[in-house]
């Protein structure tokens, strides 16, 4: 027998092909995204933080450098405008390689410009669409391709309570969040077959730049508290989760108000 010269079995699985603690956060320069990145690094994850504003990413990197490193967490950053969807495949690949694999992708990028009561600005609206929906689809598709092929991974999309109904105050912001909800639900249904999870997060009011100057807000929580609840939901493989959870009550009421009444209300 030639067992001495026998061919060797392939050296799989490589580290990248087995689950670990490697996360990609899109929209990580401020608000919930930044809070998530910090929490993950503190918990020992390798995190890639993607955002448009380089100076805020540097700030985030400096803050993460100060975190206790017991678990061996780390942060890499990449400057990217999510409206430039064609850049996503290459950047996604570069970051996934740098992290040595990928287990979690969070899409937290969003804009919510102030809209006057009588304002119908198509350019501004389509810009929101590009960031909130276009970017989500570009990064979501890249994540879905990878996760489906490796049969593990979690995609978390930060949507909003605002996607439940079309309201007077922010027609297109609500539209983008409703689109995101449907897109994420479809991915969840597609990917559950191969063990991949997609989690839709619907925050209420979170103390970030987005809610600055809105006055006193119901059930306002800090970005860090939101991040804690989001990671908890993702670990529990929640399908849809209101953050904090009591928004579920509000959403259920709002969803069930008939249109003839809803159009008279100022919500």
């Amino acid at each position, binding site marked *: *027998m030639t067992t001495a010269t026998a061919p060797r079995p392939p050296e799989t699985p490589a580290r990248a092909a087995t689950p670990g603690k490697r996360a990609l956060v899109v929209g990580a320069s401020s608000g919930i995204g930044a809070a998530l990145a910090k929490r993950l690094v503190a918990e020992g994850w390798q995190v890639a933080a993607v955002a448009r504003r380089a100076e805020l990413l540097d700030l985030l990197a400096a803050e993460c450098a100060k975190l206790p490193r017991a678990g061996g967490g780390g942060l890499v950053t990449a400057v990217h405008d999510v409206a430039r969807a064609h850049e996503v495949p290459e950047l996604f690949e570069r970051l996934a390689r740098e992290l040595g694999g990928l287990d979690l992708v969070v899409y937290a990028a969003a804009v919510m410009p102030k809209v006057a009561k009588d304002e119908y600005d198509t350019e501004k609206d389509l810009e929101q669409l590009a960031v909130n929906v276009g970017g989500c689809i570009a990064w979501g598709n890249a994540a879905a391709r990878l996760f489906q092929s490796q049969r593990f991974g979690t995609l978390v999309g930060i949507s909003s309570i605002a996607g439940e109904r079309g309201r007077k105050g922010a027609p297109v912001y609500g539209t983008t969040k409703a689109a995101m909800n449907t897109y994420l639900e479809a991915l969840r249904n597609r990917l559950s077959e191969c063990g991949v999870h997609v989690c839709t997060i619907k925050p209420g009011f979170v103390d970030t730049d987005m809610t600055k100057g809105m006055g006193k807000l119901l059930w306002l929580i800090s970005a860090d508290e939101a991040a804690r609840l989001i990671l908890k939901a993702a670990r529990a493989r929640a399908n849809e989760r209101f953050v904090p959870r009591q928004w579920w009550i509000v959403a259920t009421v709002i969803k069930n108000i008939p249109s003839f009444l809803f159009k008279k209300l100022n919500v």
Partner: protein
Amino acid sequence: MTASTNASRFDAAPRGVRSSFEYVEGWGMAVGAHGRVFRPRTVDELRAVFASARRDGVTLGLRGSGCSYGDASVNERGHVLDVRGMNRIMAWDPATGVAECEPGVTIEQLWKTILPDGWWPRVVSGTMFPTLAGAAAMNIHGKNNYAVGPIGDAIRAFDLVTPSGELLTCDRERNADLFHAAIGGFGMLGAFARIVLATKRVHSGDLEVRALRVPGLAEAMEAMDARTGSADYLVAWLDAFADGAALGRGLIHAARYLEPGEDPDPARTLAVARQELPPNIFGVPKSEAWRALRLLNHDAGMRALNAAKYAVSALEVERGAYRQSHAAFAFLLDYVPNWKWAYGRRAGHGLIQYQVFVPKETAYRVLRAVLEESQRARIVPYLAVLKRHRPDPFWLTHAVDGWSLALDFKVTPETKEALWRHCSALTERVLDGGGKFYFAKDLVLAPEHARRMFPAKELAAFGALKRRLDPDNLLSTNLARRVFDGFA
């Protein structure tokens, strides 16, 4: 903290060509790697991918639907080019039965297009998902190999984009050497850009099938040999756990095409909808059925399942001849979607198929030894399939005038060392008996085995052609490096 990166050499992607970062694995899941996958939609995009890979000094592995069990379409040291973006049937002539297809057209697309006109692909695999480019590159065979040869015998001509970007039209007269080398050339000489193939006239959407139970290997081979003249398809399932006097017991399926007039209403049976496989299995939705198989995926469970199948087969034999649609007869592997997940879903868990091809003179002795040694080593295949074959003119063909036995072995990170040692021992037996192997199924061979199984003249000619068309070794895969030392 920044992780070290080898990303820089992967940076320049050709503009406009779709690509993504994925885990690319063999169908059996025992081998795979993360990497970039390109999906060109046109010949120009395909050339652009070749050019950019050449510029970056990165190899490309060609891939269709990824149905090869082993590492034939895995390239862990470079990029992967998935041809499924080019998937139009460019021309179909229902008068002559000749189809002209882009490389990513699948067997499924082809049969669904041509069957309503009364045609069926001359050669199909046990699954309908392979692309024609993949089928041609691996030179696939079906349950009728003894009668009609491999798919290469049905191919009239093809266009091949060579690594330099040149488009060569090949058939049995023009570039005949390349025609016979690229079919079965496992994607080493170029990418198929167009495939012209002949199909088979059928007079019904049904076949007439007859099941025959055999108590042992000798009886199985005898019964199949007795039917090669009358049956259009022949395949035997064997219970690889049965030993002693029952060694090689199993069930033969023999099928024949219906003659004109035998089917009173061919228009009805030729309809695609009537060919579809059943959506439920014992009331369980197909998509979840693999979970039931998962519960049985160990030696005791599979011993019981194989024994039960043999016992139940008596009922099928009693039915006598029955009619079954082409798709239901041909595509057994598609009955339970993702059945391979029964072998485990984590990377590195899965199966290999080890298919040996043995000339008829030594077949009985060698196949018997393969089954016996597997039982003795307690590494018993969960599935064993016996087929009859004939030689063909392709340079690196796996075909012999003889028999093949395809064995599904379970792979886990813990058991793979022992499994590879076992296969290595079996390989010696097979090569000593003048046998061969098939790259769509292989994950265990080494260069010394290639040198022993192919005639020296063909092997040298193939290497020379590879070096002429691809001097920089642009096209490479794990398989090419494992079995051919990367044509270095």
